[in-house]
């Protein structure tokens, strides 16, 4: 289960605040995954006191609203990433960025599909630059794209381009993941699925033996 409480002293109308919060949740908490289990209790509550003295924001289409939205996105993304970073048994955070989609929502769906893939997560834990599993998880996201446009990078290593697997330094790619695991850092996966304007990001973590151990012992 994830829980969140967010507070601000900005002044904003109820309708605008409720829309802003949903947009931020979609760009943050709804884009993380550890084990694919959606809890019965997930909740984010956001409260705005208005005590900063700003003018009341009553429309989404103003620069003040846009700025507050960016601040809210930043706080929620920072918290959401820390949840994925702290995934049960995790040794590293996995950040999956997708570009070239038709729109933000489709890119986000592909990104989360890859971040949720147990086989991709296990490969990261095994420090295996397994581009095939990443391509597979992108392919079953439910978003149509031309596989001959698929491009996949792991950190700075290009693994696939134009839908064609490339020769790459597998030792360097593996060491990139090993270093991230040793420092509880971040493994970055960059994917492009076409030429569209849509981009999105999702966060997950690698799948280790400890995840099973922790959850085999934790019982209802």
């Amino acid at each position, binding site marked *: 289960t994830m*829980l969140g409480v967010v*507070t601000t002293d900005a002044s904003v109308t109820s309708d605008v605040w409720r829309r802003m919060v949903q947009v931020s949740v979609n760009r943050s908490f709804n884009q993380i995954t550890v084990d694919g289990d959606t809890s019965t209790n997930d909740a984010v509550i*956001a*409260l705005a006191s*208005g*005590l900063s003295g700003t003018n009341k924001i009553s429309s989404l289409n103003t620069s003040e609203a846009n700025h507050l939205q960016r601040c809210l996105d930043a706080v*929620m993304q920072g*918290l959401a990433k820390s949840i994925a970073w702290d995934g049960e048994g995790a040794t590293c955070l996995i950040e999956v960025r997708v570009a070239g989609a038709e729109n933000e929502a489709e890119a986000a769906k592909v990104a989360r599909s890859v971040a949720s893939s147990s086989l991709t997560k296990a490969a990261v834990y095994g420090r295996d630059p397994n581009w095939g599993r990443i391509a597979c998880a992108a392919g079953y996201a439910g978003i149509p794209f031309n596989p001959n446009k698929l491009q996949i990078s792991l950190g700075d290593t290009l693994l696939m381009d134009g839908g064609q697997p490339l020769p790459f330094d597998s030792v360097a790619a593996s060491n990139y993941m090993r270093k991230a695991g040793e420092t509880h850092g971040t493994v970055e996966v960059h994917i492009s699925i076409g030429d569209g304007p849509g981009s999105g990001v999702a966060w997950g973590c690698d799948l280790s033996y400890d995840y099973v151990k922790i959850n085999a012992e934790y019982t209802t």
Partner: protein
Amino acid sequence: VASVAKEASNYIPAAPILLPEGPWQQIPGGVTAAIGFKAAGMYGGLRALGEKPDLALVTCDVDAISAGAFTKNVVAAAPVVYCKNALNSSPTARAVLINAGQANAATGDAGYQDVIECSTALANLLHLKNEEVLIESTGVIGRRIKKEALLNSLPKLVSLLSSSVEGANSAAVAITTTDLVSKSVAIESEVGGTRIRVGGMAKGSGMIHPNMA
């Protein structure tokens, strides 16, 4: 207050918060950074093992504009159903009460009654209307909350409320379950020429694939 709050944040380290770049700077604290907010965390005897804080409270000095996003899992926990009703009936709220230990999910009508009793008790203590009190729970699914322990802890929890960084940190620890780190952050920026602050706390480590609306 400081000694209890200080002690709470000693239980587990704070997570590194990876903030995106932008026109803001990170400042200390979390939910109490913004003007008008207080928080507290304490051990109320709800956890099955150990004495890590397990009860948190966040309050606002004024009627705060409220918003929420909740799981789309149809077996929604009692506090989720309660909060959706509360948000539908009031555009503002004044307090968020959070317990760890039991999720109060799959607990049927008795579980929902427990939420009502907890929100009523806190509303009475803070002289608020019920729907101004929101509630979040996390922990073992299928177990009702240890209501007596929770209700008995409320007066002390209210007395510990603080607008300090320690208040925010102790609340962030108290909401954790299998987390290895607490999650809390705050930023400061300028909107329309006026300084604003946005802060938050979160928990989560397992059963994580949120689908909230």
